[in-house]
């Protein structure tokens, strides 16, 4: 029945999109499925230095009961079969194989986002951790992005609270575990919205990077800034920009200040452009229900070689850049760029170990060296009010790597915004500059760290 429905509904789509959808549909019944476009690069580069993990956590009002959490997790993971998998090596690519086991709830660590050995047989690409009142889930990027992750965490929290005896009538924003998993959630949306006839993009030049010394492997400094959302929005409104745009402007301004301080007595020629990568949730632009990766980056930036930018100029720059780039035409072009690389016949016939060798090199030189940092805003997390009253906060720790060193993850819940910096270097200059700038604007900031 589903097939017939599919056929009638999708007649307007192109033939190739239809074929992919048929395959996706099959994939939901199959024991294994292919990685999506973004997952491929993470499956190749993932190592102890580049854990490719991000973490989402929810703090409840009461201490976590681990047994109940395990029960809730066992129930939840069944609703997310595309997360109940194991990364396996094939001859040419890694792929995901479904598991029959359940992930275990683990204890939390001082340093989150430490390497998860995803390639080990039977290892889940996610890690559920409990500490005091907090449930944290660390996701490997080979299975999903922040949007998929937050839905999983919300579902898990709702399930846990239900077991705790909280009455829930209607669930919004999270999945109902009694529903059947939808085959559309398996979809590789990058491939679906791939248009091979678009022209290619020129790569931007290398960007300024923080020069700090790396900490030992596994050390991950967290700095959390808690800010009242209302006051922040008020301030952003003064500049007539959105919250994300305003955050990006502050981020760029901080990076600019750091770069000028580093080069006090040296010539301007040593300066490099500053560019930060901002992940965009493509589900907002394209009609997609996928629970796997479906995000791309836009990269606003400034070029301090032209002179020191004032904050107003940076805000203007970011505003116009974001409004221009967040257009489905430009995004389609980026998708085409990424998917085309995956479909390249020469690359496809290379054995996996060759791909692994080059994957890291390409990731570093083509991807990472062109960005000075990243800021990822998941936006406001919403749940029904009877559930929200049991939850203290939601937090998002971004993944980072030795080239980028510091990344920023932002999420808002109720009346507070949680800005988390994940840092693998020994210097917190960026965090310091960033939060001091916000304090100077008259917005109170509360800072925590690990």
């Amino acid at each position, binding site marked *: 029945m589903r097939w017939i429905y599919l056929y009638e509904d999708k007649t307007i789509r192109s033939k190739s999109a239809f074929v992919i959808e048929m395959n996706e549909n099959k994939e939901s019944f199959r024991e294994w499925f292919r990685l999506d476009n973004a997952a491929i690069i993470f499956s190749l580069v993932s190592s102890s*230095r580049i854990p490719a993990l991000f973490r989402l956590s929810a703090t409840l009002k009461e201490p976590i009961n681990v047994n109940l959490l395990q029960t809730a997790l066992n129930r939840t993971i069944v609703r997310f079969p595309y997360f109940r998998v194991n990364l396996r090596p094939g001859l040419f690519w890694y792929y995901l194989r479904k598991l029959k086991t359940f992930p275990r709830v683990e204890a939390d660590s001082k340093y989150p986002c430490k390497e998860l050995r995803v390639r080990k047989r039977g290892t889940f690409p996610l890690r559920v951790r409990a500490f005091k009142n907090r449930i944290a889930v660390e996701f490997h990027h080979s299975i999903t992005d922040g949007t998929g992750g937050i839905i999983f965490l919300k579902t898990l929290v709702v399930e846990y609270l239900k077991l705790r005896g909280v009455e829930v009538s209607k669930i919004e924003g999270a999945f109902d575990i009694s529903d059947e998993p939808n085959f559309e959630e398996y979809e590789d949306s990058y491939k679906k919205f791939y248009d091979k006839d678009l022209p290619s993009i020129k790569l931007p030049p290398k960007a300024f990077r923080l020069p700090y010394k790396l900490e030992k492997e596994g050390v991950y400094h*967290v700095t959390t800034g808690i800010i009242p959302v209302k006051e922040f929005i008020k301030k952003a409104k003064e500049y007539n920009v959105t919250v994300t745009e305003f955050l990006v402007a502050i981020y760029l301004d901080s990076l600019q200040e750091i770069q000028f301080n580093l080069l006090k007595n040296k010539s301007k020629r040593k300066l490099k452009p500053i560019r930060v990568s901002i992940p965009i949730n493509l589900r907002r632009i394209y009609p997609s229900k996928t629970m796997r990766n479906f995000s791309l980056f836009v990269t606003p930036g400034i070029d301090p070689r032209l002179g020191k930018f004032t904050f107003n100029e940076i805000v203007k720059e970011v505003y116009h850049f974001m409004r221009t780039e967040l257009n489905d035409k430009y995004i389609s072009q980026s998708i085409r760029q990424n998917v085309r690389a995956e479909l390249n016949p020469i690359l496809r016939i290379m054995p996996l170990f060759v791909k692994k060798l080059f994957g890291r090199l390409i990731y570093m030189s083509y991807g990472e060296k062109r960005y000075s940092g990243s800021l990822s805003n998941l936006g406001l997390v919403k749940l029904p009010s009877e559930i929200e009253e049991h939850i203290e906060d939601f937090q998002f720790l971004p993944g980072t790597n030795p080239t980028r060193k510091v990344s920023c993850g932002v999420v808002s819940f109720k009346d507070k915004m949680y800005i988390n910096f994940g840092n693998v270097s020994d210097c917190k200059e960026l965090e310091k500059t960033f*939060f001091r700038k916000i304090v100077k604007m008259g917005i109170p900031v509360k800072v925590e760290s690990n």
Partner: protein
Amino acid sequence: MPYCSRCGVEVDAGVEKCPLCDTPIQKLEGVSETRVTKKYPDEPIEENPVRKRTDKEKRMFALEIVSISLTLPFLITTFLDLIINKSITWARFPMLAFLFIWGTTAIPLLFPKKPVVLVLGEVSFVMGFLALVDYFDDWRLEWYVTYALPIVIVTILFSSLVVLASILVKKKGANIAAFILFGIGGLTFCLEIIISRTISWSLFVLTPTVVIGLFLLYLHYRFTKDIDIKEKLKEKLQI
């Protein structure tokens, strides 16, 4: 709630230092000590260590694999020859080659940290192999004495000198490249003497290697500051 006097940010009660700038947070007198609410555990969790084979186990395992994978072709060639020719004829060469490969791999696996045993063992294996190949050919030694033996000795001599010099110098860098160049120059010089008993073309190799080598030494001892190559490599490769 306490504040950091430098950053202006609010911190949790009981926190001693500002998480951003490490400035000590002033304690308000008269206010009773509140218990610190830690946001993360104090200890990092180590992943369950995967049981790893010890170095010795790994070496013995490698030896086992090498031995077995060489025994198979060894036996196959031997029996083929025996079946076809009713005696060992051409098979003596592949048999010798398999023995040679086994010996040269077994020595470093058995004596990994004994450089003298290693070098002497390998050298004797190479010499024995060459002598036997020469002897098996027509049951007497010909080119072994005139060419093979001196070439092996000269090669060993120069390579050991280069390695020894590279180990002994304190500051490593361009000087190692210079030693290698000197080695190449000296080796070609000696090779020509052994092969054609004259000195002609090898001078074209010797002169530039010596000149460039000296230039590299000059560069190294005049200009390089103390750079930790290991650290530099680590930084570049990010390992």
